[in-house]
C-alpha cells in the first residue's frame, strides 16, 4: 500500500522536535481528519539552516512531515518557496490518490512557516 520511502520515514522519522527561538512556525491542521503538522524553521543569511517537525495522524502525514525537513534543510528560501506537493510525493515515491491531502498539509505547513518569518 505504501512505498519503501514512506515506510522508512515511519520507521525512522527525521528531524523530529521543535526548535528554540525559531525564525518561523507553521502549524496546520486538516479540519476534516484532524491530521496536524507543526514545523519550526531557522533562517540564516537566506538559507533554511535548521528545521524540526512534529506530526500526528495517518502514515502519509507523518512521512510527508519527515521528508519535508529533508527537502528544505540547507536550501535557500528562494528554492523552498517554490516547493509543491509533487516534490513531497516524489520524495516519498508515490502516495495513494486518497492520501494526497497529506502532502498538501506538509506544503501548507512550510508556506505558513515561511510567511511567519516575513512578518
Amino acid at each position, binding site marked *: 500500500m505504501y512505498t519503501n520511502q514512506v515506510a522508512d520515514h515511519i520507521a525512522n522519522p527525521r528531524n523530529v522536535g521543535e526548535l528554540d527561538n525559531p525564525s518561523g512556525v507553521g502549524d496546520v491542521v486538516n479540519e476534516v481528519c484532524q491530521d496536524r503538522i507543526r514545523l519550526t524553521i531557522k533562517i540564516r543569511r537566506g538559507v533554511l539552516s535548521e528545521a524540526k517537525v512534529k506530526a500526528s495522524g495517518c502514515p502519509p502525514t507523518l512521512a510527508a512531515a519527515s521528508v519535508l525537513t529533508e527537502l528544505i534543510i540547507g536550501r535557500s528560501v528562494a528554492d523552498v518557496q517554490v516547493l509543491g506537493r509533487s516534490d513531497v510525493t516524489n520524495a516519498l515515491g508515490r502516495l495513494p490518490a486518497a492520501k494526497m*491531502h497529506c502532502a498538501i498539509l506538509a506544503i501548507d505547513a512550510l508556506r505558513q512557516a515561511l510567511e511567519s518569518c516575513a512578518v
Partner: protein
Amino acid sequence: MRVYLDNSATTTAAPEVVAAMLPYFSDHMGNAQSVHSFGQQAKAALEASRRQVAALIGAAPTEIVFVSGGTEADNLAIRGIAKQFSERGRHIITTKIEHPAVLATAEALEAQGFFVTYLPVSREGLVHASEVRRAIRDETILVSVMHANNETGAIQPISEISQALAEAHEAGHRRIYLHTDAVQSVGKVKVDVDELAVDLLSMSAHKIHGPKGIGALYIRRGVKLGKILFGGHHERDRRPGTENIPAIVGFGVACELGRTSLLERMNRTRDLRDYLEQEVTRRITGVKRNGDPHQRVPNISNLTFDGVDGESLLIALDLKGVAVSTGSACSSGSLEPSHVLTAMGLPRDEVRGSLRFSFSQYSTREEVDYAISTLAEIIARLREMSPEGDTPGIRSALEGANSASTGASEIKL
C-alpha cells in the same frame, strides 16, 4: 520476528487440514453428483465433512448447507427469508454493529422496499434483547444479530433474543426467524444451535484454521428459504453449484479439531489475551479497552491508545513484523471510522486510536512479549512526534511509556 495477531481476519490452515485436503485435488477428484466410483468417493467425503461441521454446533447434518463462506451464508439467510416471506411482511431487525455482509445485504433489501431497523448497542458493544422486543412490528419476519462481534469480540445475547421472539410468537405474532452470524464465535466458544435457539447460523472455515472460500449456513429443519442462486439441485436444492470437495474436507477437519480441543484452546488464547492486556496497560499509559470485558470471545482484544492514529500504529508495527488490524481508515481526507466503535459511542479520536489484537491456538507467549515491547516503543515514538505531545494528558502518557512505569492503568482487568 514475524508475529501474526490478526486471526480474526483470517487464520493459518492447520497442518491436519492441509494434509486432509490434498488427495481431493487429484486422487479423489470426483464430482459428488457423479454416479461412478469417483463421484461416490467424493460424495462420501462430502457427507462425512457435513457430519463434522454439524457436530461442532450441535446440528443435524441435513441442516448444514455448504456455501462459499460467511458472506454467502449471510446473504442466503437474509435474502432467502426476505424472498420467502415478503408477502407476509417486509420488516427486518438487525444491529448497527453487524459485519458488512449483513449490513450491505440489509441495505440492498431496503432499496427493494423492505424496512430495516438497525438496533443500537451499549457502550460495551452489546445489544439488549429488550431493544429487539421493542422493535418488533406486525410485519417483522427476520431478526439478524451477530453472535460475536468481529472488532470487539463482544458476545451478543442470542438466546435472550430468541426468548423474546418466542414470547412474541406466544402472544400471537407470526413466526419471526432468527439468524446469527457466528463466524467469529464458532470454534472460539461453545456454539450450540439449540441453546441459542436460532433458525439460521453462518459459519466460515478460514477463521478456524480451515481453508478460505468455504463456509456453511445452518438451516433449522423445516425452515424454508427463497432461492438466491439458480442451478442444479445440490445441497438438497438449497445451494446450486459443484461442491468444493477439497475445501469442504478441510472445513470438516477444522471443525473436528475445533470440537475436540475447544476448552483447552479457549483457555490458552484467553491467557495470552489477558496477558497482553495486563502488560500493555502496565507499560503504556493512555490505554482503554473497548467492548464488554466479560461477555466476549477469548481471542480478541480491542484497545484504544490515546493520541495516536490506528493506521500509523498498524504500519509501524507491520514494519517490525507485527500484524494487527484497525477499524479506522482515512481516505481523501475523510475519516471512515469503525462503525462498531462509533455505534458504541466512542469519541472520534478514541475510535481513531484503536487496534484489534486477535490470537489463535498457534500464538505464543514469546510472540506476545515481542508484540508488547514493540508496541510500547512505537507508541512512545509516535507520541513524541505528536504536536499534541505537550498537552497534559499526552505528556503523562508519554512519561509513563518512557519510564515503563508500573503505575495505575486506566482499565481494570
